[in-house]
């Protein structure tokens, strides 16, 4: 059995058990990873022999210490990588997640540690925003007219859905057409001009693409 296949399964089990607060069944696992139950069972039996897990009554999959350690470590690598790829490198979230699925098996523990520390630095992007702590990322209103920008994240209460619908979502490139004295702005996104009032513009975090 390939290491990556083993790690993927362990990761999926970790995700499911953390989420449901109980060990998942084989059926749940097969739905989650879109593989037929029979195939999953085969692989699980192999892994049971390797001491990664035990299949309990009712087909519940219980991870051993060894399996749980590996699974959690892969899960964490996935999260860190995906955050890095989408938040810092600006990849499409779907693509970032798929890429993370590939990289997570080969990346060394040290690289992940360093990446994680990089993401959590004061200027760090993903994590701090998520927890709603004060952060000092540049927003739309801090750039001069004519800037070409890329959206890092959008955090506003309420009007967020409308912004996503108009194409204002993380990763999208926009152009700042006008700013008024009060910081109301007009931006060009997907070929359309959209006016935003200051309170909306100030919750759109952007950066200048290199």
């Amino acid at each position, binding site marked *: 059995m390939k290491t990556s296949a083993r790690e993927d399964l362990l990761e999926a089990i970790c995700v499911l058990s953390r989420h449901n607060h109980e060990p998942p069944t084989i059926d749940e696992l097969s739905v989650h990873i879109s593989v037929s139950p029979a195939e999953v069972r085969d692989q699980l039996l192999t892994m049971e022999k390797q001491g990664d897990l035990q299949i309990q009554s009712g087909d519940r999959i219980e991870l051993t210490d060894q399996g749980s350690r590996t699974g959690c470590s892969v899960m964490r690598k996935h999260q860190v990588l995906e955050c890095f790829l989408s938040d810092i490198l600006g990849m499409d979230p779907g693509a970032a997640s798929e890429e993370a699925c590939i990289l997570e098996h080969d990346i060394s523990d040290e690289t992940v540690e360093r990446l994680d520390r990089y993401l959590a630095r004061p200027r760090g992007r993903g994590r701090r925003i998520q927890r709603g702590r004060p952060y000092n990322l540049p927003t739309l209103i801090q750039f001069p007219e004519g800037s070409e920008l890329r959206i890092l994240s959008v955090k506003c209460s309420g009007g967020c859905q409308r912004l996503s*619908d108009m194409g204002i979502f993380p990763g999208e490139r926009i152009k700042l057409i006008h700013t008024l004295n009060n910081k*109301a702005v007009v931006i060009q996104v997907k070929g*359309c001009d959209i006016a935003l009032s200051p309170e909306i513009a100030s919750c759109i975090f952007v950066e200048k693409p290199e």
Partner: protein
Amino acid sequence: MRLGLIGNPNVGKSLIFHQLTGLGVEVSNYPGTTVDLMRGNLCFKNERLELVDLPGIYSLEGDSPEEVMVRTFIQEREAEVLIAVLDATRLERNLYLFLQLAEYEKPLVVVLNMMDEAAKQGREIDVEKLSSILGVEVIPAAAIQGMNIAGIIPAALSRARPPKVHVHYDHHVEAAIRSIQSVQPMTRLQALQALQGIGTDHEAIELAEALAPEIEEMHRMSVSQIIAGNRHHRAHAIADEVSCEREEVKHNTLDSLLTSRRFGPLILVITLLSILCAVFLIGSLLEEFLVGVFETIVIAPFLALPLDPLPKQLGLSFLLALQAGLGIAFPFIFTFYLFISLLEDSGYLTRAAFLADRSMHHLGMHGQGLIPLILGFGCNVPAIMGIRLLRTRRERIIASFLVSMVPCSARTVIVAGIVAVFVGIPAAISIYFITFGLIILTGLVLSRITPGEQYGMILELAPLRAPLIRNVLLKSWYRISEFLFIAMPLLIVASLILGFLQYAGFFNVFQEMITPLSEAVLGLPGYAATALLFGILRKEMALETLVILAGTADLPSVLSCGQIYIFAVVSVLFIPCISTIGVLARVVGARITLLVSLYTLVLGILIGALINMLIIW
């Protein structure tokens, strides 16, 4: 059979609708909402078809009343076939909505509108390819020139089919969809909606809420954002594939000037002032003419008829109401709407809203709130109808107060008619300043005390275009018809009631009762208070009644300058006219209407009393 037109705002849907249906159009509210729907009939091969123009939306999964309405409309299968109108110049953003629409798997055809403008921008779109990707018929069209419009209905009737295009979502989202479906028997679409908190299946939504945090933690953005992102990427890919190398969209210099920091606000103020002046000039000329004609050909012959006093009184009230309605409707309101529709169709109105955002902010509203306030100068009735465009109830409440206080053309008639003539032009202007001051003050206070959420402005600037006169006329007509069919009947009924009361001698009783109060508080004689009462019916009627009751048009011989001034201030401020009250009740409900009426009543009397005290002192 029923067909529905669906698309983004500003894609030319309404134009196509009018070209397909002609003039027999009915505007009605969708049941249970305040959203307007246009319905029209047409005949094709001896079959009667109903065409519905759905409001322009950006998404089928939002929570604005329009979006919810369109979603329900599609889900409830209220139309057998949908006609999706896409803007060829903004294909990518339009495809985003189309990809959502495709998930409903309803039979439809696509009209790719504005092909002419796209060609002008140097953008070519491979219609065949687009059609094969989407899996439905795509009709290239240019509604402004009428190109291919005739082909829409035959295609919709014979070749509409559900689209084949699908969005593949991020695998976490797909997994969540599968887990919801494995627990609850529902379609992919319903599961996807549950993930975004839409739908009536509470168990599915609870399940989705449990699944969402994990996905959000992994992606560091909300599930809705991920889904929107996936759709945008798909739309981008399709747009890229079917349109050839597009040039960078050039920014027009006129546009830059109109929204520039330095000149934009100046141009806005000049534009608005010149419209107000033009409307007032054209309006008063036309009004004089219309009223004169009506007087000689209808009222004078009627008065000459030998009738009993009661029918005569009632008949006269009816005719006077008709005369007033027409005398204000066409000269002032229609002219005003012509200008406003012109501004709207040229794309300037959205720019005006953007420029005004800052000032409107202090009044507790956003840029969009400027539009009803401007409309209020013509007539409060259509302005109150315009309030429905505002997004939150909070803004609507604030706007209903402020709009009711805006001096409409009828109030301008009073100020110009007595204060400017008998007291002086500076005094007349001071009344405007008092009114504006009070509007601003009211806005400042209301913005603090009105409950409710506050959204910012997110407004797409419509592209600048040369407006088509035919469309401007049509739009003005639809707007004025609201006045004619809603405000006019109220005006006539109220006029009849007052006519009857006058006949029954109610006014003499009222006058006796009100005289001591009126003299003590406002320093006005009793008949002036009665005249103010008439002002509720129709603002400028207060002036006419005053002249009749005073027995002379030379007011300074019976009233002092101070009294004339107080009379004008009170009649401008207090209680919106009966038609405005009627429309307010429809738009914001009875409670707010009552509050607005009480507030303006108290405010009017208070300010009148204050001025009176100042004069005596």
